[in-house]
């Protein structure tokens, strides 16, 4: 629901440069898939968007203001691990959103507001197919169920931007396809801007409206960390005309994936 503008973004840890000259501009409602080899800095880019880490240079604008340098309800996040609160049941995890948002100094809403929050939470649980698990703790939920819960929780926060950090990386292929459908449906319903980091090229093409590849363009053989990664390829996808197998192959070759066949298979289907 908000546009994202990144200009001249740089990030270094000491001498080691991770990102350099990153420029992206995304319209509201776009779904960006970020791909790249391991350690290329795409997750760092996401954490900068989140506000968990600060850039060393450049600007990041969400909506029409530069982002606050700490996480805020403007940007929601789903991590691969630790995506929900282990000390709360599924329902309590969802209620926590309203508790944090308008619970005041106790961090808890009471009375009629609790009732309506509860109703909203229960509807959301049903929506993501977790109605039967409302009173279970995350430790007893499967990986797929935990990620459903995490997505539900993040969406209840009504973020303008949804950030996904390899959200389905630890799931079985079957569950993963289910999650793709769920995410696509929710994205169509809520219409927020999505930025997703993934290792799975097929997933990137299947879900995204745009695929961004992170890679290094400059190399110093004497000092490999002298230069950082930047966006080397920016492919706009059309919902109606899916990406051609050649595009997928091209991106896969850039990322150096070994799962090329499966990537093409997923996109073709």
């Amino acid at each position, binding site marked *: 629901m908000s546009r994202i503008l990144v200009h001249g973004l740089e990030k270094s840890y000491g001498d080691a440069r991770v990102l350099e000259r990153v420029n992206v501009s995304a319209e509201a409602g776009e779904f960006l898939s970020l791909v790249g080899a391991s350690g290329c800095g795409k997750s760092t880019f996401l954490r900068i968007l989140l506000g968990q880490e600060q850039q060393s240079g450049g600007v990041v604008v969400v909506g029409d203001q530069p982002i606050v340098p700490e996480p805020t309800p403007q940007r929601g996040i789903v991590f691969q691990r630790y995506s929900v609160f282990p000390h709360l049941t599924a329902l309590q995890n969802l209620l926590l959103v309203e508790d*944090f948002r308008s619970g005041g100094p106790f961090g*808890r809403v009471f009375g009629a507001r609790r009732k309506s929050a509860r109703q909203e939470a229960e509807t959301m649980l049903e929506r993501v197919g977790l109605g039967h698990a409302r009173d279970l703790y995350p430790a007893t939920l499967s990986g797929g169920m935990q990620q459903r819960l995490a997505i539900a929780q993040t969406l209840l926060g009504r973020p303008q931007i949804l950030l996904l950090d390899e959200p389905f990386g630890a799931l079985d292929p079957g569950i993963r396809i289910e999650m793709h459908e769920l995410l696509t449906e929710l994205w169509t319903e809520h219409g927020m801007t999505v930025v997703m980091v993934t290792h799975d090229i097929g997933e990137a093409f299947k879900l995204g409206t745009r695929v961004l590849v992170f890679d290094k363009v400059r190399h110093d053989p004497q000092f490999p960390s002298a230069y950082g990664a930047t966006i080397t390829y920016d492919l706009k996808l059309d919902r109606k005309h899916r990406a051609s197998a050649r595009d997928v192959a091209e991106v896969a070759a850039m990322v150096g994936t070994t799962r090329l066949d499966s990537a093409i298979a997923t996109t073709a289907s």
Partner: protein
Amino acid sequence: MLARGTGIMQAAAGPEVARLQLSRSKARLRLINATVSRGGALLLGTLPFAAVAIAYLFASSQRLAVNPSDKLLPSPAQMWSAFSDLATVPDKRSGDLILWADTYASLIRLFAGVGMATLVALSLGVAIGFIPRVRAFLLPLVTVVCVIPPLALLPILFIALGLGETAKITLIALGVAPVMVRDIANRVMELPPELVAKAQTLGGNSWTMVLRLVLPQVMPRLITCVRLALGPAWLFLIAAEAIASTEGLGYRIFLVRRYLSMDVILPYVAWITLLAVMTDWLLVRLSHIISPWAHPVRTR
């Protein structure tokens, strides 16, 4: 592969299966893989206690056979009569039932000291672990205080606070609090940054995150901390009571030491052990009630 597998299963029908199962149950496993059944565990666990008891009974009866008025290793009957006298016969001078008066005095001191330490550990530990400015301000001090031997402070406490209850309770609190503060602070710092980031994206501020994220997450660790602290707390309690007191379990033990009254000392040590074991068990139950999520039900 699959077909061959089923083939073997078919060939192994009937008595063959029984033979295979027998050989499986007889297989010699590595020591680390050989598990113990419930009854076996109970038996193995009881053995050392039985061994100590038998050794004591043997030594005691040997000594008593040589000298019936020997005081070093009293018989169980002698210990029981001394112990039940203390528990049921009012003291001639004060009119108190000594065992219960001692237990009450000691437990009040112990729980007051450990309780204060727990409150301090929770508030300081969370503040140090969660708020970088407080950490920079207080962590060096806490780290230094941690290495001061608390018993070396005892004379200072007696001089500054007098010989009353305050000094004893303060000794216990000072003795266990610093380590607890550090432990809680560490636990808070180990919270996954993902959870803290996520709580912020859901609208949590520093205070509500303490209430809804940090406190519930450190609660199991806090209870473990208290369980571990109770050991040193008993040590400081008995040390303080031995030096300056008029009642208490530690006081009684050191008092009757002058008369070589092993028939009182040994039951008192057993009584203290029992109290400590019960407190520990209660704390474990408490942790299950407060933080059920941290104790998933085991399937076995």
